[in-house]
């Protein structure tokens, strides 16, 4: 009997020890467990355990959780976002409010991850809506694309109010122009460009986006049975603007192409030939003073390969499966001075009317969508 009692006491002590050890795991170390999640489910078991412990941790605050987004990848940020939602609900049930001062400080601190700050902004302004305009006034160039979008929208709202109050068109237009300069999302850019034009202003959309508009183009080469995608035609290894090459329908030669499209579209049917099962190359030079990391963003309904300075960037062997600006994105390293961009654009054999397009558009920008570099 006594033995059983002793075993029981030992078991309780052991459990308490384990429990204390678990509780003593710091918030930071548990968040680090979540931050470690990676592709293919890497770190899931540990992260699941950490998430559960954090969700049950008394006194954990939303800003503490959001700080876990600093340095976290997009997968882990989603785990942490869900944790913030659970912790926020618990705090609201317990205290009826979230720590507004801490949230505001978090929003204002641009050292924190952009997504975490935007979430803090969301929680704060839900609780204190009057903070919204005050904070957004200084966020037109915020590193958070979402907060920047909110700030642009606040300016749009302001311009619309001015217009309703019969303000001078120029005054309204200037507000729209300020918003346009800050806008990085396609829908806002298009909307603002329209407003500015309506009020007699001008916008340079290709420049705003950073579209490459001055190209040299050559083709058509053969893409029968889609075999041209993997076949390296001469433009992939050399550039000689005076040289003629054997194309699909005869000799082909580089020719200049300047896109006048607002979105920098290179229309190959129009410039070369309206034909199926063909390949074209578009080559452009792009300058930048200092070595910079940038993004190539391109859109096309055709299969494409892209090179920078002779090095492959990316390839997408996909035909007529939707298209839009920024459809494909790749991070590239531009070197100081002249850079050479080469795009291979393949058209396939499909005959439906909607498969006739043979075109591409490409822009060079930073991660927010701000143009980087320019044509020489």
């Amino acid at each position, binding site marked *: 009997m006594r033995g059983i009692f002793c075993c029981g006491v030992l078991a309780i002590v052991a459990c308490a020890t384990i429990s204390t050890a678990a509780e003593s795991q710091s918030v930071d170390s548990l968040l680090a467990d979540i931050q470690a999640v990676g*592709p293919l489910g890497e770190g899931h078991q540990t*992260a699941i355990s950490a998430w559960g412990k954090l969700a049950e941790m008394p006194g954990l605050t939303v800003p503490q959780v959001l700080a876990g987004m600093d340095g976290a990848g997009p997968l882990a940020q*989603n785990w942490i976002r869900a944790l913030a939602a659970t912790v926020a609900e618990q705090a609201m049930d317990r205290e009826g409010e979230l720590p507004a001062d801490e949230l505001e400080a978090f929003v204002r601190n641009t050292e924190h991850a952009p997504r975490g700050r935007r979430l803090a902004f969301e929680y704060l302004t839900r609780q204190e809506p009057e903070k919204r305009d005050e904070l957004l006034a200084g966020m037109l160039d915020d590193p958070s694309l979402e907060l920047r979008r909110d700030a642009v929208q606040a300016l749009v709202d302001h311009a619309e109010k001015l217009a309703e109050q019969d303000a001078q068109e120029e005054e309204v237009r200037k507000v729209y122009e300020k918003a346009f300069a800050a806008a990085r999302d396609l829908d806002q850019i298009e909307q603002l460009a329209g407003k500015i034009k309506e009020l007699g202003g001008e916008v340079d959309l290709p420049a705003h986006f950073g579209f490459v508009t001055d190209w040299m183009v050559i083709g058509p080469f053969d893409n029968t049975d889609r075999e041209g995608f993997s076949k390296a035609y001469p433009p992939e290894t050399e550039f000689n603007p005076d040289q003629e090459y054997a194309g699909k329908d005869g000799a082909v030669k580089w020719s200049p192409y300047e896109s006048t499209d607002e979105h920098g579209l290179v229309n190959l049917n129009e410039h070369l030939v309206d034909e199926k099962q063909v390949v074209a190359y578009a080559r452009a030079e792009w300058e930048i003073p200092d070595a910079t990391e940038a993004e190539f963003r391109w859109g096309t309904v055709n299969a494409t390969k892209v090179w920078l300075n002779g090095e492959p960037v990316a390839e997408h062997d*996909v035909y007529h*499966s*939707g298209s839009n600006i920024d459809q494909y994105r790749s991070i590239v390293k531009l070197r100081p001075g002249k850079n050479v961009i080469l795009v291979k654009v393949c058209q396939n054999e499909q005959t439906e009317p909607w498969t006739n397009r043979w075109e591409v558009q490409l822009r060079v920008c930073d991660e927010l969508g701000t143009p980087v570099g320019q044509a020489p």
Partner: protein
Amino acid sequence: MKLARYTTILVAALLSALALSPAVAVAADWLQFRGSFGNGVAHDSQVPTEWDDERHIAWKAPLPGKGPASPIVVGENIVVTSSSGPQQEMLHVLCLDALTGEKRWERRFWATGRTLCHPTSANAAPTPASDGELIFAFFSSNDLVCLDLEGNLKWFRGLAYDYPKAGNDIGMASSPLVIGDTVVVQVENQGNSFAEGLDRETGLTKWHLDREPVSNWSSPMALRGASPEEDLVVLQSPDGVSTHDADTGEEFWKFDGECSSVPSLVCEQGVLYVPSQGMMALRPASEGGETDILWQASVAPGNASPLIFQDSLFVLNRGGVLTSSNAASGDVQWRLRLGGTFWASPVVAGSHLYFVNQEGKVFIVSTGGSEGEIVSEYELGETVLASPAVGDDALYIRSNGHLWKIAEPSAES
């Protein structure tokens, strides 16, 4: 060994079909695309056949974003997904109270994969699935979220992280399937094309199958065995249909033939009714045998998936014409013009068929007579792409802006 087990499963599937038939099952839940049985049938549910705004719209709840995803019913919870944002990058999972339509909780996530899609579609195109305890919300961006019924995250997978070229820019739409302890997703496209089975508890990959790099929007289905352990996964692709072990993904049987890439097949009593060269009824081959093609007919479904009910096959074509055929022979019994473009697959509640076209017009069709009859029509007034859900004597329909509950007034009201 493999074939022997497969034969056992096939026999079990036939024997168990009656036991699992929705005609005798009591199923208030609607746990996945086309319901808990994957057939769109809720025979035991009694849903109004004439709708009156005052009496039958139990509630209409606003939704935060777009989505062709159907709602699902898990006990007292209605779970629905949406997507919003300039690039459809914000993913929403909402849980509403089935009784009141009030939001119980919402969780948002950032898409990690491709979010571009046709303007009429949305990132929230696949219907979520549940096993009654956990929710598995899948999106066109190939993000897969597992939550419990209180909204607590269990795990999050970004499959485009693993396979960056997965997806197409018209939008993916294949819905996940929960089968045993496995969540099955079918991600077929011109880039990284695959099907995967993931562990429901951890989100870890149990099996991965490379698939033909061709666009496909049909959803995986279950061929039920005598016990849940014997259920098989059925994958429909443009080049055929195959059955697989749910735990390992091992292929048991394959039918090579051109299949539709949009409407999904339906399994009923061991027979697969496949949108293939019109419609085809076939029984998967057992050990050493050949596939038994029961019949093939030229009645071709449009976007909506076919439905089997009371020995009849119902197919809605691209022109909005409903055809009823004898499920045993494929012979046409009657045709009925509904009109419009349909993306939503039909459902059966009680003894009536419910259709919703893209313009939000609801057609309630009687199945009782020798000819089809439109019993009543109703205008929701909003674009509807999602298939309705049925649960606990109620019909749930979602548009891009709202979710409706249609039911007879409760005794208390």
